[in-house]
């Protein structure tokens, strides 16, 4: 007869295994971050971050790409934040249960689970071909907007919903209309949650590549960083020029392999992206704590 393992022992073994797996996960993350910081350490200097890439020689930087990534996130935020927050408010406060709202929720879920390459292709069709703009930073920003809208809408909805009902009822009882209650009471109280959502969505947009390959393009014109006229073709501020971002650049130098130091550049650029992810996460935590104290009273 087989001897049964005593349940107490199984319990111990299972607990140990679970500790091990979870610990391994954290170690993996630390190794991940450590690896890139170590590999990219020689590249992470001011020159690498600010100079233009070289085409067939070693020693190029990532200046324009870094700028493009930041500018693209900014442009996309100008559209996706007001639109997404407004949609979130609608979902939290005005949407009545029914077919239309069901359909809207299904749309948002579908939109947020769409492969980013599919969103990029839609961008190629509409913002590149149909508008006749060709590959532009604006086209990329609009495509990333589609990627971020459902995320921002959902986090804003959650933030507005989590405001205590007593605050809302207090405002309504004082004779404020529903909209006045939303604009002056609910949204201010929901600001920490909304801002956290926006920062995390921006972080995602910052590292996005598949959406941008065929919308913002895989090249960047020679930029003149002293020219701040947004209508000029060489101005970095001109949104209607091709704009390769940092993440796209990592992909491109690996698939083309023209520069001899592609490895070092990819290591350095990856280190920059990982550091930005950390920065976006820390910023989100910090801001939500700070604003939570400012707007939310005792809520975290």
């Amino acid at each position, binding site marked *: 007869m087989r001897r049964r393992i005593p349940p107490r022992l199984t319990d111990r073994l299972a607990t140990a295994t*679970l500790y091990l797996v979870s610990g391994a996960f954290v170690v993996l993350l630390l190794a991940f971050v450590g690896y890139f910081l170590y590999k990219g350490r020689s590249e992470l200097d001011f020159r690498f971050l600010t100079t233009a890439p070289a085409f067939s020689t070693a020693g190029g930087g990532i200046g324009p790409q870094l700028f493009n990534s930041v500018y693209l996130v900014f442009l996309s935020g100008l559209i996706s934040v007001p639109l997404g927050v407004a949609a979130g408010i609608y979902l939290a406060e005005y949407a009545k249960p029914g077919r239309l709202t069901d359909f809207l929720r299904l749309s948002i*879920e579908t939109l947020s689970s769409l492969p980013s*390459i599919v969103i990029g292709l839609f961008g190629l069709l509409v913002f590149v071909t149909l508008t006749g703009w060709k590959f532009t930073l604006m086209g990329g920003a609009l495509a990333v907007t589609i990627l971020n809208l459902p995320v921002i809408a959902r986090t804003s909805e959650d933030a507005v919903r989590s405001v205590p009902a007593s605050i809302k009822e207090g405002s309504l009882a004082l004779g404020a209309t529903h909209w006045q209650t939303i604009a002056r009471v609910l949204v201010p109280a929901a600001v920490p949650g909304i801002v956290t959502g926006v920062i995390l969505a921006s972080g995602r947009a910052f590292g996005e590549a598949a959406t941008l*390959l*065929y919308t913002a393009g895989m090249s960047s014109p020679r930029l003149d960083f002293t020219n701040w006229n947004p209508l000029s073709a060489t101005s970095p501020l001109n949104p209607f020029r091709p704009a390769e971002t940092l993440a796209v650049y990592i992909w491109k130098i690996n698939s083309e392999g023209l520069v001899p130091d592609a490895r070092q550049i990819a290591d350095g650029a990856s280190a920059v992206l990982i550091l930005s992810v950390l920065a976006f996460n820390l910023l989100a935590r910090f801001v939500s704590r700070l604003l939570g104290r400012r707007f939310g009273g005792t809520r975290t």
Partner: protein
Amino acid sequence: MPNPMARKTLGRINRTYWKHEGLGRATVTVAGLFLSVLTLLMAGFLAVKGLSTFLVDHRSPLEFLFSTKWSPDADTPAFGALIFIVGSILLSTLALLISTPFSLSTAVFVSEISPDLGRNILQPAIEIFVGIPSVVYGWIGLSVLVPFLRKSFGGLGFSLLAGSLVLALMIFPTIASLSADAFRALPADFREASYALGATRWQTIRKVLLPAAMPGILTGVVLGLARAFGEALAVQMVIGNMIRIPGKLTDATVNLTSIITMDMGNTAMGTPWNDVLWTMALLLLLISFLFIVLARMTGRKRRAVR
């Protein structure tokens, strides 16, 4: 017959209503409905482009779905996409098989074993993993995993296995955090009743909590699968992009997103070759919609259990 006085008052009330309620309400309603319109627009545009393979180029849908013959630049071109479809299915299924045991363990750890460590260490770690861009995953796969596999198993290193491992890591946070939510949502009575019967913690987890949380876990698994199926660049960088059905784990392979990524830039709009890429994009859209419907169904079951 309303007198002018009453009409004036009514007008004022209307204007006040519009200023303090209607305008804001109308604005956010339009923004909300815009998301639906956007989704419909995307589906519409992709359907028109994607169906032109069948309607304009008169290829057969059966050839597209079930033929392994892919020779887009031959004199009599063939556009069978089965190789890419099989590649996508193999990659995402393997990724799921690798990832689920680890994600579930982490979810159990976070919710049942040590909520403190979970909240302070694992939760932030999971959030950072979600935020890491897919090209960075691809690059670490390319520069660390692929050489490692080449040394350990021979061959190219670019392989089905490499792609599945990278994907497994990428979907880990999705499955782990949704499963942890499912465990946390279980009523405390379940645990207490099980402990009161003398069960150990592990017995409680295995026999009580795991079955009860299953619908929520399945939702996480389906959404992880959706993410794996649609991932493009990280996979494309490590699978070798060889157009054939892989015979073993260490063979190079290709999938839907990779072929779209690579060929979209080299083909002219409106050619049959280009059209078939749009058909693949439409297929990706349909599949991700299918996953959402599936996730909703498992989610509904969860509500029924409670």
